[in-house]
């Protein structure tokens, strides 16, 4: 088996199987919005409450993270170790996945393989149906958000109750998550109070917006679900190949309730979540909490291996999800995107994310990592594909790379995906033509000088004030995006090249 082809070990009867790694199919799950990023961002930027909520929350998390990261002298070594472990995992993913399957099966679990979102949802739905249950409790999980599992279960008459406080807020608010770690980051406490009063049965009508009061209301609401649910659905932060152990890290303990109380546990996990050995967790259990919540250690770390008779769930299913990951793995330039441990540090430091929030990205994976991972998972179908605009949703400032605990070179991946976006054009766009023309001008000093002559017109426009506040058509069509908020400097009387030719550098 090649090291770049993930492959799916399960024997399948599938006419779509071309033998090549495939992207996540269009129309499935939540990896594609309906509008381009700039248009969606324009709407979000105008939401002043959102701006305030996001600015405040990301500022707090950034400061907390910076504080706990600075405590560790070996932080950079930990990042290198995390990166090296993940690179090793990707280099031998097929082998490690088979090892995981073997160990989970040996300990009494059942492993399922899902090629895409619909297949994953179908497998989980059938597993729940087989138990006779009509409701499940859920541990916060990005994989199930990615596949749209809740909607699929609902369509099958199965209620899915989110038990993570922030996911609960999102679910009760008929909203969608806007952050990988803090899905309700766009809400403040008075908005949460209003959602609880409106949507939570039996809530105290005198509920205040005190964080503790809100948490206690959620606790009372969820406790009933924990005690009655017979099936839990989770994701996983890590899976250890050599022991078959799954791990979930969390802050609230709701996950621990879901992982221990119900009789049946179904875990949906992206295939990239593997680590080779138990001792590798040592690295990630330091990197993840400090990068995500800014804590030295997360309050709850739950691990389980298959089933243990008489203790916890007596039936355990692990659903391994591809949904485009094979295609990412097959791209040697882009494969590092699969190293992501979903900590959200890159979102919290991103000046773009901080201002527009997660919904503008249209995918469950927002922010810098989402802007690369999303189009990599789905592929880019052409200039009109909303995901074609995601790699451009960054000023390439590089703050994401510095924050990434596994050293994913996100700016480089953004550029690679911009190239993929350009290559998806089926006919030349105006930008394509402009770039080609610029390349011609920039490969000859003579042609470049000729292009600079056009600047003389600019001096005319600038007038005596020396600044340009608007441009005439057709330059205005492109440049109005600039002059909407910024003056254009008036072109100088002579270029640097002309000055050098006139003076030889002597003033």
């Amino acid at each position, binding site marked *: 088996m090649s090291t770049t082809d993930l492959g799916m070990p399960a024997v399948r009867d599938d006419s779509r199987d071309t033998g090549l790694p495939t992207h996540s199919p269009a129309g499935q799950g939540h990896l594609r919005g309906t509008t381009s990023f700039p248009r969606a961002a324009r709407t979000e930027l105008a939401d002043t409450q959102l701006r305030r909520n996001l600015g405040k929350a990301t500022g707090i998390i950034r400061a907390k993270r910076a504080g706990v990261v600075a405590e560790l002298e070996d932080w950079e070594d930990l990042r290198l170790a995390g990166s090296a472990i993940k690179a090793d995992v990707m280099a031998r993913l097929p082998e490690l996945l088979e090892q995981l399957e073997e160990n989970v099966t040996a300990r009494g679990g059942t492993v399922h393989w899902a090629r895409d979102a619909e297949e994953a949802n179908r497998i989980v739905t059938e597993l729940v149906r087989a138990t006779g249950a009509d409701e499940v409790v859920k541990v916060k999980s990005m994989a199930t958000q990615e596949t749209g599992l809740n909607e699929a279960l609902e369509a099958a008459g199965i209620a899915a109750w989110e038990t993570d406080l922030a996911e609960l807020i999102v679910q009760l608010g008929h909203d969608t998550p806007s952050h990988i770690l803090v899905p309700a980051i766009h809400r403040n406490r008075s908005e949460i109070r209003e959602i609880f009063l409106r949507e939570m049965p039996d809530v105290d009508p005198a509920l205040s917006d005190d964080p503790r009061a809100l948490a206690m209301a959620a606790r009372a609401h969820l406790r009933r679900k924990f005690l009655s649910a017979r099936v839990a659905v989770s994701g996983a932060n890590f899976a250890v190949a050599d022991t078959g152990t799954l791990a979930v890290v969390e802050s609230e303990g709701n996950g621990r309730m879901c992982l221990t109380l119900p009789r049946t546990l179904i875990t949906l996990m992206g295939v990239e979540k593997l680590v080779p050995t138990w001792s590798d967790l040592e690295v990630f259990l330091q990197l993840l909490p400090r990068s995500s919540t800014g804590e030295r250690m997360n309050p709850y770390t739950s691990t389980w291996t298959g089933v243990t008779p008489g203790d916890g769930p007596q039936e355990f299913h692990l659903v391994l999800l591809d949904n485009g990951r094979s295609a990412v793995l097959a791209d040697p*330039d882009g494969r590092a995107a699969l190293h992501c441990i979903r900590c959200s540090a890159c979102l919290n430091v991103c000046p773009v994310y901080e201002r527009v929030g997660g919904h503008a990205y249209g995918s469950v994976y927002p922010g810098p990592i989402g802007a690369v991972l999303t189009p990599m998972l789905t592929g880019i179908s052409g200039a009109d594909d909303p995901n074609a605009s995601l790699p451009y949703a960054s000023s390439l400032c590089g*703050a994401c790379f510095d924050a990434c605990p596994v050293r994913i070179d996100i700016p480089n991946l953004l550029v690679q995906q911009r190239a993929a976006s350009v290559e998806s054009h089926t006919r030349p766009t105006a930008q394509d033509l402009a770039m080609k023309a610029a390349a011609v001008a*920039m490969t000859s000093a003579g042609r470049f000088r000729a292009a600079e002559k056009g600047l003389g017109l600019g001096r005319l426009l600038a007038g005596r004030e020396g600044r340009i506040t608007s441009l005439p058509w057709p330059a205005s069509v492109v440049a109005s995006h600039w002059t909407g908020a910024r003056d254009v400097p008036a072109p100088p009387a002579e270029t640097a090249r002309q000055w050098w030719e006139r003076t030889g550098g002597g003033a």
Partner: protein
Amino acid sequence: MKIAVMATCLGDALFPQAVQATVQLLQRLGHTVLFPPGQTCCGQMHVNTGYLREAVPVVRHHVEVFGPVAEGTWDAVVAPSGSCTGSVRHQHAVVARRAGDERLAERAEAVAARTFELSELLVDVLGVSDVGAYYPHRVTYHPTCHSLRMLRVGDKPLQLLRAVRGLELVDLPDAEVCCGFGGTFAVKNSDTSTAMLADKMRNVLDTRAEVCTAGDSSCLMHIGGGLGRLRTGVRTVHLAEILASTEATQTPAAAGSPGGVRDEPVEAQR
């Protein structure tokens, strides 16, 4: 030292005063400066917009024009830009390799190894932090993203500014946050870019500085474009212009020389 100046396309066409200041500063420090006439652009705009294939001939042209530095004909190439230096150092070889041109990639690496951003050249290569400049103004410094996170210039520009006589340096709050320029980002995502610019301008204005400086004309064009539009009375001046200025240039009559005192750098230029 024999130093070739890489004007950058933006510096050549729109901000020649930063290029001139770079030349004059290095001459004042006793170096021989030359201007390779064939130079055009490093190709960063193409690379960062996703036109990696179109960037190949631009990279090749750059490597040809600045090739003499790889052979030792010149001692160094200097650019008054962290971003363009970053492109030369971190993108050129990648672009060439992606196109399967290993020879070009190796040649690009040899040129990149001797290409420096201005503060790197001064502090690391020439070993000076006091360049003998005089600039009697209240100044705040914006560390541009690519100088900070691609080149890791650290506090070199601040070392240089602290040694300038008469200069009152004030810390910029949230200095390390991007100003929102990002090349074509400012046009393709102009709303988001403007929101970022607004916060940068707020921080600049909070310092009560009269000058915002940086090592990149591109970011200064963005910040200055916003500050100018709102008639804030704060001007943007390239680091090179501050370092080039002396008692002789800092008189009201010399308002148009490096680091001149009006928010009309171009009209006042000649």
